[in-house]
């Protein structure tokens, strides 16, 4: 009798768990689909396809191999829709709205897609040209593509979608740490792993500072705690000792938790630790070109 009661309870738990899972999935998809504009469209435009949801398993069917990049950045799900001009049917706009889990990852994907500074004035940061518009806001990365040159309509759709994202989460604070003087516009990128191509650096940001025909990069790698950061600093030092060289020079004014060296692929390197961050510069020619910027970066880390 007791056993039967137990089994009944267990079944109830399973059923409730199933119902809860269904509600969760449905509400998640509904939340994402609600960002697809159906009203207030630009004059003459109509929704002709979608919203079509995609998850981690089906994203490949939609964007082929590029799905890997999104999954690397924490892709949770997406919706796709196509809009068409009622009279000029060749004139279509495709919209993809990706839920990337959080604002850092949404910025990360955005930063990998952006190849020049052409802000469109929507979302937390954006890009706009004649055929495409993309932006990120909160945990969402939004990408629009127009078959015909259509900057105004792309702007209209982008603003419409951005207005539906009410979450006020700001841009990742680390973006603001990078010194602005000399920074190549729109060059700050976020990588969820393998920063500078180095496994031990894990996730972090990189900004580019043109230096004649060459480029200097400042980087900011983020760890769980200062112990992990110290460990990564040691690994960096070991890596340079094996594959490049460590400079015997004292890296004043950065103290003990810092070193200089040369990487066979990145060129000159300065690395230092502050709390759970590792920061540094790579690819510079003279110390004067990087130390003032590193000092500034260091000073901005709170």
């Amino acid at each position, binding site marked *: 009798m007791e056993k039967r009661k137990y089994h009944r309870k*267990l079944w109830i*738990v*399973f059923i409730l*768990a199933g119902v809860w*899972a269904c509600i*969760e999935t449905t509400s998640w998809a509904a939340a994402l689909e609600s960002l697809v504009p159906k009203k207030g469209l630009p004059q003459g435009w109509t929704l002709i396809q979608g919203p079509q949801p995609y998850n*981690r*398993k089906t994203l*490949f*069917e939609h*964007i*082929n*191999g*590029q799905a*890997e*990049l999104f*999954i*690397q950045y*924490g892709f*949770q799900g997406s919706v796709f829709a196509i809009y068409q001009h009622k009279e000029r049917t060749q004139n279509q706009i495709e919209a993809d709205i990706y839920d990337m*889990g*959080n604002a850092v*990852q949404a910025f990360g994907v955005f930063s*990998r*897609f*952006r*190849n020049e500074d052409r802000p469109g004035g929507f979302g937390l940061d954006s890009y706009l040209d004649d055929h*495409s518009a993309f932006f990120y806001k909160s945990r969402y990365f939004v990408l629009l593509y127009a078959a015909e040159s259509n900057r105004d309509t792309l702007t209209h759709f982008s603003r419409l979608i951005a207005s539906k994202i009410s979450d006020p989460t700001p841009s990742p604070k680390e973006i603001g740490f990078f010194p602005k003087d000399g920074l190549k516009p729109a060059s700050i*990128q976020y*990588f*969820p*792993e*393998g920063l*500078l*191509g*180095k*496994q031990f650096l894990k996730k972090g940001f990189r900004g580019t500072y043109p230096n004649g025909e060459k480029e200097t990069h400042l980087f900011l790698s983020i760890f*769980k705690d200062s112990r992990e950061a110290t460990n990564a600093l040691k690994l960096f030092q070991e890596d340079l000792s094996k594959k490049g060289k460590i400079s015997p020079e004292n890296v004043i004014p950065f103290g003990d938790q810092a070193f200089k060296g040369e*990487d066979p*692929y*990145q060129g000159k390197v300065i690395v230092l630790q502050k709390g759970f961050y590792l920061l540094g510069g790579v690819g510079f020619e003279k110390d004067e070109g990087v130390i003032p910027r590193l000092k500034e970066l260091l000073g901005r880390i709170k």
Partner: protein
Amino acid sequence: MPTRRMDRRKFMKNLSATVLGVAAAPLLRSASFGKSGQGASVEHRTLGKTGLRVTSVSMGVMNCSDPSVLLRAFDLGINFYDTADCYMRGRNEEMVGKTFEGKRTKVFIQTKVHANHEKNMRASVETSLRRLRTDYIDVLVWHGHSSPGEVSDPDLFEFMSKMKKEGKTRFTGFSTHRQMAPLLREAAKSNFHDVALISYNFTHSKDMKEAVALAAQSGIGIVAMKTQAGGYKKEKMGGLSPHQAALKYVLMDRNVSCAVPGVTTIDQIEECAAVMGASFSQRNLNELKQYQSFLQGRICTLCGGCKGECPDEADRSDFLRLAAYHDGYQNDQLVKEVLEGNPRLKNIEPCSGCSSCAVVCRRGLDVRTQVKMAKEIILRS
């Protein structure tokens, strides 16, 4: 006498012995599965009727974010690089072009074009050439075929023929993620395609293997992508990298000309390149197929990549471990040991009841589902 607490390292050690067999583990460790150095052996194979001699381990550039990784691949002798017009809106092609400027004759570049009007496709190819800083592409691949009809599309033939005649590309092909076996069989009937970029790994069926063989025999160069889905945590696998094993498994099929694993770091490309020097018997490789559950993303590999992501610091990794023991390795003795050693794990409610799980698995594992599975295991135990 079982230990009261099974730590991860011990678990992995036990696992490698259980799954691979005690005899296989030392054999695998003794093979040159370590990191590739400057003088690592490099294996070349012929890419079908193109005649290009490509490295069996080549490189998928898509996820790569830093030129240093490409330069390291080049130094390791890798000579075939796969990119696409659409990856990061062309930034990926730009990186390849910039990195290999001055080295163009020493590398083979494969990029892609999407089905569209001829004018748009032509513009796409021209843009790719500009980004790649070259006046020719080695292999131009039609991106993402999904039906056999597309493979024999006369419009495709015409456009690709023009690209060859105009010298924009030396060879052409197609890529596919779906219906691969029928597509390969259809492609094998015509003499048109030089290369097929396909998703191919140890999970694929005999039918797929036969289709690959048929296509290869017809002269199509087979480039394998998605050869692996595992992590890079060989130190936690008793010295064996599941990633390398999966890659080697694919390359054991001599119908495959090369594999293009996607890499993001220097460590990863060195690890992949080292596979070219490793040799295994068919028996060992069949045993490696048992790693399938690890590599398919069905269960947690305990890689630790999600550590620290839960804002409430839930014991999620222990829950995932329970699910892995039960579902992946079907070893409830291990489940019992973990539960006996960690009575607090029975308090799974705060984690399983959380509706805003912030934990993201890099390998695409559904963390919530795994936690639910752990809950069921705990309720049953």
